[in-house]
């Protein structure tokens, strides 16, 4: 079908996303699967609303992956990376090498030439950064051991693309099919500035560019952002943020590096910048949209003709690819001492082929490494395996983990566990906040029931004899299993704002009798919580900040008891304002005005505190009134 211009296409893509993603989410399938289904639906084989342009849309949408890595970089301090170096090099290196060699062996067995076999192995060893990270992030699994290690391996694969791109042309068995090398998408190695240079020159240029990005990030970008921020034009900042990402993409393309890697490095460099948060909020929507677009185009590009031609073979290949990668990953997880649940998550998440395979296949095709008859079914295999991944992770979460997760030492299945003891408190999340709440309650003879998504936490808690459930506390069945119907209190201690709100939503809807005590991380989240009818909202930084401020005052010689009372007064005002602002949160404009008012108010309050110290407060301990009276009486 002729697309009928840009607007019609945009209309088709957006409608597909808007319709299928909420449905998928509602069904608990997650947004990635939703986008993929949307893509298949509008693709040439179902509705046929998008056709051959799907491929170019995908190349454009891959920009979403670049942005995603930039955002991930922003959240990682360099010290974090350093801490991960073992798992990046060890696990990542082992995964790529072992998978590539095994795949090569299989390809050799089927009679391919060794060059083609090696190229195939390398290309298929890669996994899909976009699908894995988005899926894990959405499920709040990034912080688990399995999530962290998945990330490490993906990072290694991103780095590995550089040498793979360099090696592929050397593995050509036929004449390069075209002289104009596929290089417009930013991934491919052609048409770079440095291809004429000798190897040492290329290496120097590559290292120079990386060093340049790091130095610019440290000394150039921050001051420029400061200037831009001063203009107070929000859209200018957005433009600058986009410009930054795009320039790095171009630059990396020019030296033949993976732009995703480049933006990732830039992100890490900027992780300590004061504009980190601003950058995040500006890039986030673009990333989300483009990534969605990318998933849609993956769905749309699944060639059902190729599949229909030989469905059994294709499905066997998908199964073989997934199984082989799964067992290699599981073995690595085992060697690196991961727990059973984490191995499952890690191996399932990374078992698919990656989006780079599309790029590398077409690159290899152009360079005479592969033949079209080999590549076409393989592209379908990779796309199918990618589409399977969110489904596999979901099945793992819903069916496998509840049955077998953390079961090595436990006989009971978490989801059907009988409550040995009835707890009146359920604590969702066993991080720093949840664990402290729980320990404190435990110390005062209140047993809580815990819900957590990190299998290692669950294991630990179990060993210590706690009543704990593995899984997502926003699920009604899990809350039910944890005894929400009989409990009095639900403590929401998870740090992820979206998750916390989701949990509160479920609890309010299905267990309205539950009193909720929620931890929030910022004003916005607090408003949402209060808006849901949660009355007991605790900003997780407020008390710490006040205690620190109080200690500072005390050390400056202020009376500790006065400070203690002042802290309480301050906190009372702060929390009262939170609730007042929550009431008007729906009207954004009003809210902005109110936030401004609040800041002014706070200023007033603080001034009052300062001036009124000896007048307005603690009058019971103040003699000035008596003095006035006595003076009067005496006269």
């Amino acid at each position, binding site marked *: 079908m002729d697309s009928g211009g840009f607007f019609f296409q945009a209309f088709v893509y957006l409608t597909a996303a808007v319709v299928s993603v909420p449905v998928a989410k509602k069904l608990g399938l997650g947004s990635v699967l939703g986008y993929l289904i949307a893509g298949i639906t509008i693709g040439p084989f179902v509705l046929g609303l998008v056709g051959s342009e799907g491929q170019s849309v995908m190349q454009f949408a891959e920009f979403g992956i670049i942005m995603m890595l930039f955002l991930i970089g922003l959240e990682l301090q360099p010290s974090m990376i350093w801490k991960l170096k073992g798992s990046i090099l060890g696990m990542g290196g082992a995964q790529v090498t072992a998978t590539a060699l095994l795949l090569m062996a299989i390809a050799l067995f089927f009679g391919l030439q060794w060059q083609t076999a090696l190229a195939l192995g390398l290309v298929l060893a890669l996994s899909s950064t976009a699908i894995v990270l988005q899926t894990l992030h959405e499920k709040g699994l990034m912080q688990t051991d399995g999530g962290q290690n998945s990330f490490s391996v993906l990072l290694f694969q991103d780095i590995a693309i550089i040498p793979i791109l360099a090696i592929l042309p050397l593995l050509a068995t036929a004449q390069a099919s075209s002289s104009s090398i596929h290089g417009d998408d930013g991934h491919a190695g052609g048409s770079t500035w440095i291809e004429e240079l000798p190897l040492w020159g290329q290496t120097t240029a590559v290292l120079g560019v990386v060093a340049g990005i790091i130095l610019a990030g440290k000394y150039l970008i921050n001051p420029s952002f400061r200037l831009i921020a001063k203009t107070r034009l929000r859209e200018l900042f957005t433009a600058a943020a986009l410009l930054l990402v795009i320039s790095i993409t171009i630059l990396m393309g020019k030296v033949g590096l993976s732009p995703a890697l480049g933006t990732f490095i830039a992100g890490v460099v900027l992780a300590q910048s004061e504009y980190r948060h601003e950058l995040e909020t500006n890039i986030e929507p673009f990333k989300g949209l483009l990534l969605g677009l990318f998933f849609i185009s993956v769905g749309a590009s699944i060639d059902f003709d190729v599949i229909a031609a030989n469905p059994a073979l294709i499905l066997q290949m998908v199964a073989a690819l997934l199984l082989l990668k799964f067992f290699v990953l599981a073995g690595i997880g085992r060697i690196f001492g991961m727990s059973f649940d984490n191995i499952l998550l890690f191996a399932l998440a990374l078992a698919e082929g990656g989006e780079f395979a599309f790029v590398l296949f077409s690159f290899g095709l152009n360079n005479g490494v592969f033949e079209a008859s080999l590549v076409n079914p393989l592209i379908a295999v990779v796309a199918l395996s990618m589409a399977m991944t969110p489904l596999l992770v979901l099945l793992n979460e819903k069916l496998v983990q509840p049955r077998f997760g953390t079961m090595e030492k436990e006989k009971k299945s978490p989801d059907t566990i009988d409550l040995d003891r009835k707890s009146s408190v359920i604590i969702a999340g066993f991080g720093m906040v949840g664990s402290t709440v729980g320990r404190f309650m435990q110390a005062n003879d209140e047993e809580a029931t815990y819900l957590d998504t990190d299998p290692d936490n669950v294991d630990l808690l179990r060993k210590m004899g706690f009543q704990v459930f593995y899984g997502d506390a926003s699920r009604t069945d899990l809350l039910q299993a944890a005894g929400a119907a009989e409990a009095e209190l639900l403590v929401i201690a998870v740090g992820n704002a979206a998750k916390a709100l989701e949990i509160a939503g479920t609890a309010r809807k299905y267990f309205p009798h539950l009193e909720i005590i929620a931890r929030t991380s910022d004003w916005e989240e607090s408003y949402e919580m209060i808006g849901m009818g949660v009355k007991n909202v605790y900003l997780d930084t407020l008390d710490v900040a006040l205690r620190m401020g109080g200690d500072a005052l*005390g050390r400056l010689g*202020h*009376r*500790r*008891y*006065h*400070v*203690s009372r002042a802290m309480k007064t301050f906190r009372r005002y702060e929390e009262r304002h939170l609730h007042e602002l929550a009431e008007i949160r729906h009207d954004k404009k009003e809210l902005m005005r109110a936030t401004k008012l609040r800041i002014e108010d706070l200023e007033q309050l603080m001034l009052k505190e300062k001036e009124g*110290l*000896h007048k307005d407060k*603690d009058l*019971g*301990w*103040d*003699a000035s009134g*008596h*003095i006035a009276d*006595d*003076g009067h009486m*005496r006269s």
Partner: protein
Amino acid sequence: MRQFLKEVVLRKILILFAHPALEKSRVNVRLIEGVEAITGITFHDLYERYPEMDIDVKAEQNLLKEHDIVVFQYPFFLFGIPALLKEWMDLVLVHGWAFGRNGNALKGKWICHVVTTGGSKASYSKGGYNRFTMKELLAPLEQAAHLCGMRYLPPFVIHGTNVMRPDVIKEHVGQYRKMLKLLADQTFDPVGLCSQENLNDQFRRR
């Protein structure tokens, strides 16, 4: 050697100071100036030590054991002791330790209240607007001391702090210091003071 002897003959004094708003104080703040530096005196600022009222009972009891004389020092707000001092009494002076069959940790120790009041001395009398004498108003505290087997000294009261000229404050500070010095002196027997209405007059006369 002389130094050694001198230390031996000193009674150890624990001042339990309770002022919820010292930043507003005009008299107590002068009284306590430099007190902690005096040998043999432990100055214990309760509101500064326990701003959250989380009294460490064991530590407080140990502190009491180490001293011979306990001074409760506080401003008199609405005829009572500050909340933290009352809480301190309730938690530290417990049955089985301070009183009761085996509670004799404080037996024989001296206790003295140092109180500041806004109202004049005349107001604290039968005919005055406060209707009761200080001795009467402090009766529950006297009884608490009695229960613990402590020897109760008359209070050292500074009246009229609402309107007090600096030179008068200075005079009171002097008397307060003299009192502390005398009580610390082991050769002096405080029994003679017990029949007095208050300790101030005693020192005014001296």
